[in-house]
């Protein structure tokens, strides 16, 4: 018997559901699965010991979902995470919600109790399909092992097509151990090709041609659509100034004079004032998030709106569009060819404001000034820099002051704002891009939420670098209590934090402390040069605030400013 006929015979031999899961993941080209075993997923774990992909054993299922999310954001491929039933599945939920809010394509696989036990409150039984309905693009309970190849193929397609997002596949235990004599053929989904309405394109070109103060409003859709080159070409060709959302940072080079930076609550003054003054807002893969718009009714009050987004449901959701182009951003931008508008006075004004309102780094004293440290971190790391941020003041400082070579270099929990994202996200990003300087930028509140993943870094030798900005408090909450709650400081004190460097060392990870400004440059160099995982525990002033700030409920022109 020839080798090929043997392979063919083996391929059609009866297989367990668990084996079919492994083969389905291999068929999708999966390289890494982040997961944690348990009773109801044991047959799959039994089968993956011979899989061609690598399994990364995290120390909490939330870490698996965040790592898969970051892997997906960095690569543009689908991330995969896996957990058992009950608490394993519910521990994934925050990560799934995070992926949904930020449109990250992940496939989440959960075990469940055997089908006859489902609905009986069995041990570790939970209705994970029901729990996650609002936070997935789609989900399946597999009822027949023969359906596994087709469901997995569809799941990967759904996760990464159109506007990406998370999907969930729930596998009852009897389906994992059951044998499928003849797995059903996969039938790849076909999306109807969406035609870009040429009339809308011509209307957009005409609107750009007559605008006196046009402005690009760049969102996370630019990264997701892999449209960075197209956006840069469009900005160069038209000369139109630009602002970015948190997720859009890096789409344009930081040193482009008319790149006004981030808009919104912690946006730059130049960006927010440009939005309030513009007469045409060209929205590229953004969704008018409230952190970006401030008081929506007073946002960009003089502007007509061109809104381009692959998700038609985002158009008109919060702000009516005068010209709507529901299409793939990459294709839509390639199809647009406006004349260069005559907007020199407007561009000069934007560039001048950008220079006049540029951030200062001459804070008094000799303590570490976090904005300056983060700026230098990104500059020392250069084009290889990828930041995986947690949530809080450090996240906003990173957004304001780091130089991101592309939007793929800035991983941040934008929609959900999930503390604890940074460490597992950095882990997933570093595994996806071992050649890059991947740095988790965290705070003392966020870091401890998934601190257990230091064990994962150690086990697999993942050379993630960590900058832990420690202000001994929940800084962003403290800042709001100072400014908006009459300094009634409630439950924000973390002055009894552990010695984070000692904690990291106990996990077997190199760590050191930076407590003075003069130590910053050498500390960053040491961190980036470390061959393995390394943590820099940075002590900063608990009283430092993030400036500027648009108070909640105010319009973006009402910015508060502080001293550096």
């Amino acid at each position, binding site marked *: 018997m020839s080798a090929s006929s043997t392979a063919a015979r083996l391929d059609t031999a009866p297989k367990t559901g668990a084996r079919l899961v492994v083969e389905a993941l291999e068929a999708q080209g999966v390289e890494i699965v982040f997961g944690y075993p348990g009773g109801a997923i044991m047959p799959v774990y039994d089968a993956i010991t011979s899989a061609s992909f690598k399994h990364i054993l995290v120390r909490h299922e939330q870490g698996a979902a965040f790592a898969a999310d970051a892997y997906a954001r960095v690569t543009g491929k689908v991330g995969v995470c896996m957990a058992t039933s009950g608490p394993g599945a519910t521990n994934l939920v925050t990560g799934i919600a995070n992926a949904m809010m930020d449109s990250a394509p992940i496939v989440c696989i959960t075990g469940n109790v055997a089908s006859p036990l489902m609905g009986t409150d069995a041990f570790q039984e939970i209705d994970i*399909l029901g729990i996650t309905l609002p936070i997935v693009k789609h989900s399946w309970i597999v*009822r027949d092992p023969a359906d596994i190849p087709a469901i997995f193929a569809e799941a990967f397609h759904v996760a990464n097509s159109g506007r990406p997002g998370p999907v969930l596949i729930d596998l009852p235990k009897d389906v994992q151990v059951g044998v499928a004599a003849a797995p059903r053929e996969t039938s790849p989904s076909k999306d109807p090709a969406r035609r870009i*309405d040429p*009339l*809308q394109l011509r209307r957009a070109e005409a609107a750009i041609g007559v605008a006196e103060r046009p402005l690009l409003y760049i969102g996370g859709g630019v990264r997701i659509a892999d449209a960075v080159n197209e956006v840069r070409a469009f900005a160069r060709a038209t000369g139109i100034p630009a602002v970015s959302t948190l997720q859009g940072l890096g789409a344009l080079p930081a040193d482009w004079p008319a790149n006004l930076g981030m808009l919104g609550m912690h946006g730059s003054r130049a960006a927010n004032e440009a939005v309030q003054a513009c007469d045409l807002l060209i929205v590229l893969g953004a969704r008018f998030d409230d952190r970006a718009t401030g008081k929506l009714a007073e946002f960009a009050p003089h502007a007509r709106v061109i809104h381009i987004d692959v998700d*038609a449901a985002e*158009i*008109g959701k919060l702000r009516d*569009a005068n010209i709507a182009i529901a299409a793939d951003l990459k294709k839509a931008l390639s199809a647009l060819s406006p004349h260069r508008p005559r907007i020199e006075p407007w561009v000069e004004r934007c560039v001048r404001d950008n220079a006049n309102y540029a951030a200062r780094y001459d804070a008094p004293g000799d303590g570490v000034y976090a904005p300056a440290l983060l700026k230098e971190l990104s500059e020392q790391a250069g084009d290889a820099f990828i930041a995986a941020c947690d949530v809080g003041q450090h996240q906003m400082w990173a957004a304001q002051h780091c130089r991101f070579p592309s939007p793929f270099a800035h991983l941040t929990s934008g929609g959900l704002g999930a503390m604890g994202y940074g460490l597992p996200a950095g882990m997933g990003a570093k595994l996806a891009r071992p050649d890059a300087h991947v740095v988790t930028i965290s705070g003392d509140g966020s870091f401890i939420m998934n601190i257990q993943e230091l064990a994962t870094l150690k086990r697999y030798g993942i050379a993630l670098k960590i900058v832990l900005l420690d202000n001994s408090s929940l800084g962003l909450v403290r800042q709001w209590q100072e400014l908006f709650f009459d300094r009634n400081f409630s439950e924000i004190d973390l002055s009894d934090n552990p010695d984070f460097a000692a904690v990291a060392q106990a996990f077997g990870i190199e760590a050191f402390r930076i407590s003075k400004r003069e130590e910053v440059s050498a500390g960053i160099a040491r961190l980036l040069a470390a061959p393995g995982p390394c943590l820099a525990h940075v002590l900063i002033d608990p009283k430092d605030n993030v400036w500027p700030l648009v108070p909640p409920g105010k319009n973006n022109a009402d910015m508060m400013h502080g001293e550096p």
Partner: protein
Amino acid sequence: MTDTLLIQIDRSEGSLQRLIGLIERRGFHIDRMTVTDTGAHREVRVGVRGRDSGRCVQVLSRQIDRLQDARRMAPSVHSDEVASCMA
């Protein structure tokens, strides 16, 4: 004012729950609903009403369009209508 939507959904697990959850989560009351199983699919006729003046049934319709297992049986929204909630 109640708007009536006619939607075809798959008979897969969770499809009805997914549709109802979406409508309520996006800020609409369900005033009435009938579900007819045609064998191959289910047809859902649902009357919806926004909880406040900021809710737009055209936006809801496009959110329903995103569901993998649901198809609106009304004509698809025209691109001009996409532009505005007021259409």
